[in-house]
């Protein structure tokens, strides 16, 4: 399986000739949906769901299959896409790649604002994209994509606890558009696997900063407890 971070919360996954794009939003450059066989959308916020971008992809490929929750599905009505509505606990196959849906709601922004639906995706049993919620898929995860900056994202210490809870083989930061270089450096230091006295508590999980546009290969491996490296 190959994974490419497109930008922000948008990723592209390729396996056995099938290409899935998750969360094409307003920061995703036009062209990043070229060649996509299917889309997965976690929720309706603009940084995860750009209707103009998706409409262009549907025009280029009528009947483009999209899996998403009921709120986004309603927004896609009449778009010409083949929309599959899914929710927490569902398992489905995207051209042979098994995907599980986890979670129902976006993390809280403020008590006085309505919550939107949010669905995380465990893709191919390996990569977990939670959308904008600290959802635990309660399953082995090879690569956890963790949202690191945003209105619903808690402080760095809570992110450490989330990574520890999921205990993936590797963690990579996404959803980081609000950071400048100093912000990213501070995050990288704080989410390091090993504790540094008085500075960072240590997640216990290897941390990998992805480079936008550069694919990485995710090899089949077991949960860290059974892994040799």
């Amino acid at each position, binding site marked *: 399986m190959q994974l490419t971070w497109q930008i922000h919360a948008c990723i592209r996954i390729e396996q056995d000739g099938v290409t899935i794009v998750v969360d094409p939003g307003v920061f995703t450059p036009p062209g990043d949906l070229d060649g996509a066989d299917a889309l997965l959308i976690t929720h309706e916020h603009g940084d995860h769901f750009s209707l103009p971008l998706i409409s262009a992809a549907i025009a280029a490929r009528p009947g483009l299959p999209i899996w998403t929750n009921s709120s986004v599905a309603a927004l896609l009505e009449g778009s010409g896409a083949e929309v599959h509505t899914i929710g927490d606990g569902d398992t489905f196959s995207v051209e042979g790649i098994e995907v599980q849906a986890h979670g129902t709601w976006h993390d809280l922004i403020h008590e006085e604002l309505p919550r939107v639906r949010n669905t995380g995706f465990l893709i191919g049993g390996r990569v977990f994209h939670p959308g904008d919620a600290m959802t635990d898929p309660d399953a082995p995860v090879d690569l956890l994509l963790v949202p690191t900056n945003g209105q619903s994202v808690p402080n*760095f210490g809570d992110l450490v606890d989330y990574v520890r809870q999921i205990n993936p083989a590797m963690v990579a930061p996404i959803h980081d558009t609000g950071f400048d270089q100093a912000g990213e450096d501070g995050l990288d230091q704080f989410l390091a696997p090993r504790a540094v006295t008085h500075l960072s508590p240590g997640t216990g999980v290897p941390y990998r900063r992805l480079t936008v546009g550069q694919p990485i290969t995710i090899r089949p491996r077991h949960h860290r407890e059974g892994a040799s490296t």
Partner: protein
Amino acid sequence: MELTWLGQSCVRIEKDGTVLVIDPGLAAPAHALDDADAVLITHEHSDHLAIPLLMSAVRTRRHLKIWTNRSVANLLEGTGARVHQVDDGDTFDVMGIPISVHGSWHGQVHHEIPPVRNVGFLVDSTLFHPGDALTDPATPVGALLLPLCGRWVPRVGKLLDYVRQVRPQRVIPVHDTGAALINLQVHASFLSKDPIPNATPGTGAPYTPLTTLEPTTL
């Protein structure tokens, strides 16, 4: 009272010819303490206290006085600095400007990292600098300096609740190192005074960012 933001959490306050500087940290310009009569330090982290900058001012300005918490006072022991140790509930005055001290601890970074001491300063019943904590001085505040970004800073909805709790006449964002421009814009929108449907419930206080090095009158 004239307020100048010197970057991150460093502010310069001038009133009736007296100059106070709070939290001269690594982001502060080299001249930050050149005409300071007093320095107030909320806590020991380097973005709030650059020791070389402070020591250079201590050497050249014999009358310079420093007010800070117990931990920072210990760090400065033996340096020749004239340090007054203060804690939550204390009041003092700097050449006629009354100051009260609020809070004792830095906002939590993570439950396994011991918190450092942190004191907030209410200057002349007008300006509140909380340091790195969301401390409520529980007294009327003119301008609240609000920390925006940092490993300990909670999500923006909790910052909004903090502003509502303190009920200042205006909010001035500070402590923004690490935030990209888009993040500052999002904060400005979310922390706006009035509600925006489906976007923010509103803080009730005007959000008035300053430009660094440009004085403003409070």
